[in-house]
């Protein structure tokens, strides 16, 4: 087995790339993709910690499975919001959906 920190470094790099995408991309769909990358980095960390530290418990796997649920729900609703905003305002840039700003 490779040492635990190998996984942690890769997951951290994945998370930072995702963060960059969320901060920098202008397109809402691309922002959501970056969020998926971040969730995935979290999942890798979770499973790696489970495997290396507490493989005798089921919690790590169960948590990772529930993160899939959250990721799916997030993608479904997030994309629906982007489609709805696009339909009403002809724009996919999150900053421009600012009707609620005073």
């Amino acid at each position, binding site marked *: 087995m490779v040492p635990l920190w190998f996984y942690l470094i890769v997951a951290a790099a994945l998370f930072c790339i995702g963060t960059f995408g969320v901060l920098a991309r202008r397109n809402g769909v691309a922002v959501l993709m970056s969020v998926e990358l971040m969730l995935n980095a979290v999942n890798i960390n979770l499973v790696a910690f489970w495997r290396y530290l507490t493989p005798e418990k089921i919690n790590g796997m169960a948590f990772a499975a529930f993160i899939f649920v959250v990721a*799916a729900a997030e993608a*479904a609703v997030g*994309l629906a919001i982007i*489609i709805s905003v696009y339909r009403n305002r002809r724009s996919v840039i999150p900053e421009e959906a600012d009707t609620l700003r005073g």
Partner: protein
Amino acid sequence: MEILNQWAFIGVFAVAAPIFPALPILIAWILRPSKPNVLKSQTYECGVETVGDTWVQFRVQYYIYGLIFLIFDVEMVLLFPWAMAYNRLDAFASIVGVIFILLLLDGLLYAWNKGVLEWK
């Protein structure tokens, strides 16, 4: 390690699988004639010249089918471990599973009532 042995097979298989279709395509690439011209390489629309963008506006219906599929997919995937362990468990497991599936049906019923599942 026995388990990883099985996955090593899958790994080699996954690398090898695209090679099988790639091989005949490569052979064809060597054998076939290649005389492209402007007319031949046009987008094919039964001889009519292409007008405008390929990115015609699609209806939101496709997205809704994809969305409902995604939700069902995740739920089915969670049901698989439950089904695997089913023989080992008592009657409580059946109740858990039935409630899980009934909650899922709620969403389907909503989609039925709103008529989003009918192809228009």
